[in-house]
């Protein structure tokens, strides 16, 4: 099994998909030179400039044009560079792409993948660091996924490209270089969480890079005799309620952690769902970890003030266990 970086896993998924299906193509600024994070490196050489297409600095047109192209028989992969810039194409994504199929009574499909690298990336400051996965999960018509490992960035991108729904594909730009074994034959099923670590005392639910931190937290907790189960949701819509509820039924303790702002974050959806469906079975208070409702600073120490760390998860787990009722 090859060991690949998170970046190269996505490259392999695109390469494999493009070889299999001539209607798959990629479009975005600077793609011809490999893309801003090298996540398209070498593809133009193999597939040419029509299928690895540059674009003007026109996010609205990139998104809108890809949508038009998706409606009549191609499968575009749209590169938004930084998820922040994707906000320049919000009407296109939310009012057009997400709504068309329904509005037109099922006449259309928009099989497209919208890549929006998100998250903290040292000293990128407020306009290049945002994570808005909860926004997209709130929008009917969109599939929303947040891969956190090289394996998932292969399998999930393969599945996203093959999917007939528009998929908001949120890679974390802080982890392009992390490595892991990638099994190309592994298939991803939308809405299936991955149990990254089994445990019996407390459930930690997370996604994207924060799920990697959750694994670290679980390791640290295990040193303290606490057995934490780590659930990497991977997709937020649909999300694996069953896996979470099953785990919480076992542990009775829940910590939800994400990098994005806590207020109105998707963690609230998870906690609310557990409260509604299984509130009475909890053995301690739930804990939700997310960023303060502040903006991301440039200075590294200030940036760090917004980070959700594995230490915070450890503390939260300890607290909910301590306050067990």
């Amino acid at each position, binding site marked *: 099994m090859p060991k690949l970086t998170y970046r190269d896993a996505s490259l392999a998924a695109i390469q494999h998909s493009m070889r299999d299906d001539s209607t798959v193509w990629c479009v975005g600024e600077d793609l011809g030179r490999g893309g801003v994070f090298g996540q398209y490196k070498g593809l133009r050489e193999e597939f040419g400039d029509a299928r690895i297409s540059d674009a*003007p600095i026109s996010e609205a*047109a990139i998104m809108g044009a890809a949508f*038009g192209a998706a409606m009549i028989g*191609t499968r575009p992969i749209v590169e938004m560079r930084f998820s922040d810039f994707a906000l320049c194409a919000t009407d296109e994504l939310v009012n057009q792409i997400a709504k068309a199929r329904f509005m*037109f*009574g099922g006449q259309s499909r928009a099989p497209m993948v919208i890549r929006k690298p998100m998250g903290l990336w040292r000293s990128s400051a407020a306009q290049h660091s945002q994570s808005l996965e909860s926004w997209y999960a709130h929008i009917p018509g969109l599939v929303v996924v947040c891969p956190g490992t090289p394996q998932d960035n292969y399998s999930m991108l393969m599945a996203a490209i093959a999917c*007939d729904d528009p998929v908001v594909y949120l890679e974390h730009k802080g982890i392009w270089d992390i490595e892991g074994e990638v099994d190309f034959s592994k298939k991803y099923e939308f809405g299936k969480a991955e149990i990254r670590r089994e445990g019996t005392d407390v459930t930690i639910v997370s996604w994207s890079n924060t799920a990697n931190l959750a694994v670290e937290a679980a390791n640290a907790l295990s040193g303290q005799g606490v057995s934490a189960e780590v659930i990497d949701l991977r997709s937020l819509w*649909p999300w694996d309620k069953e896996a979470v509820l099953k785990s919480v039924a076992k542990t009775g303790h829940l910590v939800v952690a994400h990098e994005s702002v806590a207020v109105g974050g998707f963690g609230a959806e998870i906690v609310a769902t557990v409260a509604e469906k299984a509130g009475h079975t909890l053995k301690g208070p739930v804990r939700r970890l997310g960023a303060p409702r502040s903006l991301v600073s440039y200075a590294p120490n200030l940036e760090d003030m917004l980070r959700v760390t594995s230490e915070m998860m450890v503390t939260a787990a300890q607290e909910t266990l301590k306050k067990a009722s």
Partner: protein
Amino acid sequence: MTFAGHNFERGRSLLEMMERIRAFEEQACLAAERDQLVLGAIHPSIGQEAVAAGIMYNLTTEDILLSTHRGHGHTLAKGASSLAMMRELLGREGGCCGGKGGSMHIADFDVGMLGANGVVGANITIAAGAAHAIKLLGDDRIVVDIFGDGAINRGPFLEGMNWAVVFKLPILFVCEDNQYSATTKTSSMTAGDGAAARATSLGMRSTTVDGNDVELIADTAADIASRLRAGGPPEFLHAKTYRRTGHTSFDPATYRPANEAAEEEKRSDPIKRQRAVLEAAGMSEADIQSLHENAQKEMIDVLKEAAETPFPTNETAFKDVQDIGSPAVEAY
């Protein structure tokens, strides 16, 4: 007004289509005001029918069209069923969009009509993308994208035009200029020389025509379509017409000079003008009248039948959202 080489069959067809569009919208307005059957807003294109008829005459159902909130005429001329359209306006089963879209989101993919749009200017980049796919797939279809004069002040106008030229796509952009943007005289909010000048600055061949002269529009669109089909670069057509009604069927349009609409009707009604052309070309008054009556009858029947059609079944409210994931709120 008769001229050598006048294509009589085409001229007759153009008039017929304009009559049908007019009759459809008159019935739609009656359905809205008299019958209270159209619950959402409708935006009539009464007085603007020449654009729809003249351009669509040159397209097949393989070709692609994108339109606006004021899109009944374009859609009908592209070949959609008047009954399915009227059902859609009334939100009924069997409407083009199953009653889920209504007037502002009318679409008929079977005839290449990829949708009206409730967001001004949003269709421009989407249309460019449709043309992009056509080029990628090596198809020989072409795309027509229609928008209003107000849309040229939205960002996607620039981005979509630039895109089409850069990628040399088979698309005709049409600015159907009826001089108004809702309650605002568009010129008061528009800088420079307007639509065609902007398109020209983006490297596009731009043509400006009298938007009430259906034969001229048909000629011009024929030329452009053949250039596009031969692999030519995108083009721009600025058609100057006039919005005779209010912005919606309910808008009395008191904000515009009294008589402006009436005078425009006298001066430039495209149907009257085309009747005169055909009369000059030898068509009998009776034949001309029968085009009118047939259209009236079709649309009266269509309204009647649409009004008798049931509303969609409730469960369609959750259908066609997406393949992955269930939209329903779960019961606990």
